[in-house]
């Protein structure tokens, strides 16, 4: 059995089918990108997997356990961490304290949480920022801190929702390094939603494409870039002309 199995997941909001019989599976240690036009149901799918939305039908199996009906915090405790697309930091917590909240999932001791937070922050090269308020930081750093917070809980799998949105090229580069580090060196299975194609196509082992709630493609990046349906629905002719050959 695969590490994560999403079996025919459907999620409707009233008459709207946000996810329509989406099925895919992921192996342990894979890095999968999830792309698609706005409103395709990517974040909804994340919310279903991580327990934020109850699914309308279908099952989700994670690490040989059916997590379909679990609540969000229960899913998190089973080792599935996630970040959020829009994160408003009201600024009550410092960077270190934020990461400590993640660490507190695995330990009741403040010392233990503090030590682990220090490790994670060093690991993602955020050590210098640990005493700043989260709200004082630029967006790119905030996004990396939310990754660090998620990592503090020692997850087996990490769902990243648009960590590179709104960042400049250099910052995307930084985030990409962090993602690779998490995936390669820490051995965390990663799934990411992203509109920044440079990032998705470069780091992903495999890319899944959603359009109008349905899965329309699933394969290695270079195949996805050539897929006629994907080009029509999302990538566009120009992108492919400019980038073909780059992703090998």
């Amino acid at each position, binding site marked *: 059995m695969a590490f994560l199995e999403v079996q025919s997941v459907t999620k409707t909001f009233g008459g709207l089918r946000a996810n329509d019989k989406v099925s895919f599976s992921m192996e342990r240690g894979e890095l999968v990108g999830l792309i698609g036009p706005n409103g395709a149901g990517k974040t909804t799918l994340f919310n279903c997997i991580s327990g934020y939305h109850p699914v309308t039908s279908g099952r989700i199996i994670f690490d040989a356990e059916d997590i379909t009906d679990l609540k969000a915090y229960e899913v998190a405790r089973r080792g599935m961490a996630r970040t*959020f697309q829009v994160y408003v930091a009201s600024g009550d917590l410092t960077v270190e304290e934020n990461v400590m*909240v993640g660490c507190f999932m695995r330990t009741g001791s403040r010392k233990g949480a503090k030590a682990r937070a220090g490790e994670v922050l060093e690991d993602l090269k955020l050590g210098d920022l640990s005493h700043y308020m989260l709200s004082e930081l630029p967006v790119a750093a905030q996004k990396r801190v939310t990754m660090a917070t998620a990592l503090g809980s020692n997850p087996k799998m990490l769902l990243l929702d648009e960590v590179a949105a709104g960042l400049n090229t250099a910052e995307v580069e930084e985030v990409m390094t962090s993602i690779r580090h998490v995936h390669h060196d820490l051995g965390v299975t990663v799934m990411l939603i992203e509109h920044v194609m440079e990032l998705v196509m470069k780091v992903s082992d495999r890319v899944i494409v959603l359009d109008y709630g349905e899965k329309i493609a699933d394969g290695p990046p270079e195949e996805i870039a050539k897929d006629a349906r994907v080009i029509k629905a999302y990538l566009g002719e120009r992108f492919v002309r400019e980038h073909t050959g780059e992703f090998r």
Partner: protein
Amino acid sequence: MEAIRDAVDFSDFPRMDLIIAWIVALFFLAFPLFPHSSFAMATMIQFFMFSLYGMGWNAIGGYGGQVDLGKAQYVGIGAYTTAVMLIRWDIPFWFSMPVGMFFAVVWSFIIGYPLFRLKGHYFAIATIATSLVLKDLFDVWSFVGAARGLEISPIEYPPPDFLRLIFKEDINYYYIILGFFFLGILYMNWFRKSRLGFQLRCIKDNEDVARSLGINVHWAKVKTYAIATAFVSFVGSFHACYIKNIEPVDTMSLDISILIALMAMLGGAGSLWGPIIGAGVLIPLKSYLKEWLGAAAGLVGIDLVLYAIIIMLISAVEPRGIWGIVEKIRRRKRQ
């Protein structure tokens, strides 16, 4: 062991704060030795009581951001448990106080469990409602004296009676409540650094993020609400022995609930010193205003006008209260 070390460890505060805190603590210890009026003494005791109420409120309202305007119901439960047990069965304070805490905590679970499904203003309104319902219930319940309330007669229990907490001189009450005031600070100092404290601050920041970090948001709120309740109920029990005369109109009024929340917010919700600063400003102001303006000039209700002004000032100037202003100035200096 780590918990005790955390409770007495204040090292994350600037040196300046600690020096001031020590001076103030020594002043509190020495205050009864200086010449003072009995009015000043009573005001000091009120200050400690309200500081403790505020610390309790601060756990759920400050660190957790769940504005609770129904603390008076727990003052009532604590006060009535102690008074009833003493008058009916002659059970002294030190035994009835934990029983009162137990009842209060049980009640907090009963109403906290459904109430925390509500958010923001709706939660605040619901806490007012439950508090007023309980007050009305006590108002007609003859077992606890109904609207006339209960009176602990010092003639029946000749002072000084340490077990029943019946004294003639206020100085005894002063040192007892002062002791609990220091204990309260130590507890809150541990709480803010504990796992639950961190989780609560994260919940205040963003509940969705909190869930993604494995926090059972609802349960964390209910638990903290129970902790806050225990504080309030304890002071309620003390109130019964100190005032010796409790009636629903007084002990469980909405005024008390609002005053508790207001003090903590004025001082600085979500900070260790906030409720103490708030009580330190408001309680003397309230007592002396009542004494000078209320009684002398006939301006009854001037304290209510004052509360209204403070609420407006907090929301307009700095939602984090006095402590928020201090921290803002500090941050500006650092940059």
